[in-house]
């Protein structure tokens, strides 16, 4: 069963990849994969999921830069036995019941002081582009030819999230104070 699922996943990945491979993948195409990948390198505290097969929800708040890419990436995928779903929110206050939340443009408006705490309390991994000065845990830093990751380890810890050291190795680690800069 797991094998079949794995094969399917690979098959889906391969089927999804060929087009963009021939033409170099777009920025958000790559970031969509990254979002999906985060699910694999991060562990949520116990009790986050109601059941073993409670879907892992990737939310997008604000402007959705991924288009269909994100849905394509998570389509049929499972992470640790959980199916993946994508939900889109208009306001950050709505984005309570998701596990990974991409802060799109305009998404993080509102009460600047309260939502990080709220999200932290709800153990939500927040992701954003770095050029938008936000308080996301993981930020995409666009380098010349590639996308770098910047992780606010302190905030992640506050959120009760355990980020794999592998991910940490591949990323730039910052403290919360730095994150506000």
């Amino acid at each position, binding site marked *: 069963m797991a094998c079949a699922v794995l094969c399917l996943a690979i098959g889906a990945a391969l089927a999804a990849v060929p087009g963009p491979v021939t033409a170099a993948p777009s920025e958000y195409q790559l970031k969509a994969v990254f979002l999906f*990948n985060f699910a694999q390198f991060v562990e949520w505290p116990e009790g986050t999921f109601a059941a073993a097969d409670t879907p892992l929800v990737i939310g997008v708040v604000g402007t959705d830069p991924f288009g269909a890419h994100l849905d394509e990436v998570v389509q049929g995928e499972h992470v640790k036995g959980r199916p993946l779903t994508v939900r889109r929110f208009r306001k950050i206050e709505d984005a309570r019941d998701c596990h990974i939340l991409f802060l799109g443009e305009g998404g993080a408006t509102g009460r600047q002081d309260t939502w990080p705490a709220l999200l932290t309390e709800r153990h939500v991994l927040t992701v954003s582009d770095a050029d938008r000065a936000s308080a996301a845990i993981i930020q995409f830093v666009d380098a010349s030819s*590639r996308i770098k990751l910047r992780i606010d380890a302190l905030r992640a810890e506050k959120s009760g999230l355990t980020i794999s050291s592998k991910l940490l190795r591949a990323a730039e680690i910052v403290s919360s104070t730095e994150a506000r800069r």
Partner: protein
Amino acid sequence: VTATPVRKRLMKMVLLTTGTVLLLALSAFVLYDFFTFRQIATRHLSTVGEVIATNSSAALAFHNKEDAEAVLAAVAAEPSVEVAALYDADGNLFATYPTGLAVSTLPPVSGPDGYSIQNNYVVGRQQVSEGERTMGTLVLRSNLNGLYARLGLYAVVSAVIFVIAGLLAYAISRKLQHQVSGPILALAETARAISVRGDYSVRAEHSAGYEMGLLTETFNHMLTRIEQQHGSLQAHLSRMHLLRHITQAIGERQDLDSIFQVVLQSLEQSLGIDFGCIGQYDATTETITVAKVGGASQKLAIQLGMGEKSRIALDSNGLSRSVKGQLVYEPDILAVPFPFPQRLGSAGLRSLVLAPLNVEHRVFGVLIAARHEKDVFSSPDCEFLKHLCEHVALATQQAQLYGALQQAYDDLRQSQHTVLQQERLRALGQMASGIAHDINNAISPVALYTESLLEREPDLSARARGYLTTIQRAIEDVASTVARMREFYRPRESQLLLARLSVNTLVQQAVELTRPRWSAVPQQKGISIDLQLRLEPKTAEIMGADGEIRDALTNLIFNAVDAMPEGGTITVRTALKEAPAIAPGDASTKQVYIEVTDTGIGMDEETRRRCLEPFFTTKGERGTGLGLAMVYGMIQRHSAELEVISEPGVGTTMRVIFPAYTAIAASEVRVNALPIVERRLRILLVDDDPLLIKSLQDTLEADGHIVTAAHGGQQGIDAFTAAHGSGNRFAIVVTDLGMPHVDGRKVAASIKSISSATPVIMLTGWGQRLVAENDIPPHVNRVLNKPPKLMELRATLAELTAVAG
């Protein structure tokens, strides 16, 4: 067998064993390590791969090449890993270590996952995944230099261990092997020493260790047995030698005495007996006579009273058993309560062997051997003595047989010699008889007329009477010489007239008779011979025939002269001596010696032995070879003895020993005591010799008898027959024996057939032989010799006619 190979071999064995074990152990170890190392290397690489793969998943997931390369660079810590490469999920090369490698230099990405060894490299291919997702593939390649380095190190270490272990093994085994090889070498050395020196009394040193000790013990035991067997073999051999030596020695001897001598001497010298003697057993008297005592045993034998010829009575134990053919051994003679052993024991002898000497189950002697020590005759000794005695017995028997054979041979030769001599003498006698007959016939008239003249013619001049007397003596000597010529070989006859004679007178007569030979003749040749007389001053008389003795002495003196061609001295000695007693207690008898001694050339043994043989002469043409033979004839007839003592170059003594005259001997003399009867008788004379018949007729008629002469046998018979018929009978007939046609025997037979009472006297030149051979013909009353003696004839006529009348 030298010492080194055993040591070397042991060392080799130890080293080889050590080497082999070490080699196997090290090889197993290295092999194990080799394979283990490969596994380890594989696993190690897979571990490295896992780590890299795990750590690089994020790099792949988030396309972080720097991070990927940094992760890959971590393998630098593992120098064996040469190449590491990350491919993304699409199979595109993502990162390499070292950086910037081309795809072509890398192991291919396609292929099954896993780690394996290919061409001296460990190649690994691993999926890089995160959760269920595959992020890419990690490819690794590491060399096996570590393994080879390790193997090299192992090789060095092994070699070092090998050398050290070898040295240790050598040192230890050198020390330990001595425990094994030492005793073996000692044994080998002992064995070598024994075989070189032949000394079986050497023993191997006892060595520690059960097997070695056992081996040494067994070896020594074996040596003891060999020594014993060698000893007994040697003893047997020496006894065999001794036996051979003795049998050889006795085989060369023929007389018992020297056989016994050599046996006893050998036993004393070689068998070491202290006393040895051989006794001869006489079954009839049941005694043993000591025949021979060993040279070294003489002293002891005298002490024991067992000198040669001494007798030992049989006692009921040892000696009697031994004479029954048993070998008797008394190990301790003091324990034997019998006289003979006790006697030996008294002289300090303790052990005794009595070995019988028997031939064909008959014991004829006992060998007695004894020693001072107790129980020192071993059973081989006894066996040896037994065998020896068998040989001695055989040799003894042979010696006896040889002696008997020699005796028989000597007897045979003596008989042959005697027969030959008698044959010669018989031939000589026959010849002599013929001559004697003729001579006797010829001298008969001379004797008769001479005697008659001397008797009947008292008017004869003294001169004529002297001449006639000489003629008469010469005729008598001729007659007796003729008689002796035939008779010298013959034993004394009854007719031999013995007279009581003084030897001094006889010797003087003989010396005078021979004077020309020893005095005048040599002087003419310029040789001087001195004759000395050494006469017995006492009266020395014998019974004998003086003529014969005189002749014999004459012969001896002639021989003495002949023995001295260069001159010298002849000594004639007479002596009266006591005869040696034949048996003690016999009355002493006297003997008369007559010795003729010369200082001439002497005789060698051969000549001395043969000098009495007839016809043996050393004088060549001059000698007849009858001189001493006649002397010997005289000696025999007189019951005398002759001793010949001679030495070449010194001279010869001929000694004649007569029994001295005694009264008993005198009584044997025949005395002619019959008186002459003055009766006229009619006598018939028969003879073919006219001269004899004429002289006999003349002398008988001169006595007053009426004599009729018949010149032949037939004529005599006719005359007697005629006279008998006419009544004018003859009172007696005197006839010759040897006549042609009708001889004396026929005449006598015819006369007796006509008148058996008429006595017949036979005259013969052979008369003495007839009497000697007991050959008086039948019908003849008396035989008289020619030449007839008037006195004898008268006596016979008187005797026979008196009987007849």
